[in-house]
């Protein structure tokens, strides 16, 4: 999978095909960037989970059978003590925040996995915001660093 990496002071801008196969490279780039900024291993791993949940949704549902490109921005702010991840794609309009939270108290027989990924994202991150602009889905999530 090809990945284009734009390096800016406190951020990495990544462009890659919206395919599940892009995930290992994507997480590696973000992990390296966070590691360079001395972000703890625990938060690095949590960001990998978040990237997997959000990007895999884009890869599976945004473009159906045609291929598309997604843009991912990872920004680290030492002053605000936060990590900002932004996912952009021009696939089908889709607001992940409209997905209902799963009932995590159900017994095993009644459990399904629907909605669990985005629920995990909301639990790990401190805020999430969705906008649809000029044909682009823009999903921004922020993690405060303790």
């Amino acid at each position, binding site marked *: 999978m090809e990945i284009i990496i734009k390096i800016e002071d406190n951020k990495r801008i990544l462009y890659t095909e919206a395919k*599940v*196969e892009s*995930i*290992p490279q994507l*997480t590696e780039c973000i992990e390296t960037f966070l590691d360079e900024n001395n972000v703890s291993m*625990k938060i690095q*791993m*949590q960001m*990998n*989970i978040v990237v*997997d*949940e959000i990007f*895999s949704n884009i*890869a599976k549902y945004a473009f159906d059978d045609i291929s598309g490109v997604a843009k991912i921005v990872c920004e680290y702010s030492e002053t605000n003590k936060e990590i900002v991840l932004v996912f952009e794609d021009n696939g089908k309009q889709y607001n992940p925040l409209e997905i209902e939270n*799963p009932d*995590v*108290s*159900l*017994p*095993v*027989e009644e*459990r399904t*996995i629907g909605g*669990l*990924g985005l*629920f*995990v994202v909301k*639990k*790990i991150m401190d805020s999430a915001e969705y906008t649809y602009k000029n044909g682009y889905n823009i999903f921004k999530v922020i993690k405060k660093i303790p």
Partner: protein
Amino acid sequence: MNITIVKNEGKVVLEVEGRLDTSTSPEFEKTVKSCITDATELYLDLKNLEYVSSAGLRIFLMAQKVMMKKGQMVVQNANEIVMEIFEVTGFVDILTIE
């Protein structure tokens, strides 16, 4: 991701190493499915598992549903990151965790 399988009659131990996410879960699913057909006890040793996303949770849930009918499934040695995922998703209540 690497998986080590130790079989002893009906008891199967799977040691999972690396990351269990959307890209690695198909392989894990295949391994779990092939192991649980004749298992009565399934142990998932997660000491070398770095993290799990919902793609991996889906397989834990599938295995739990199968194993509870014919024996048991036990999850062992999960790290802090994996445990937190089990906690926020309520998987602590549906899995047997040691």
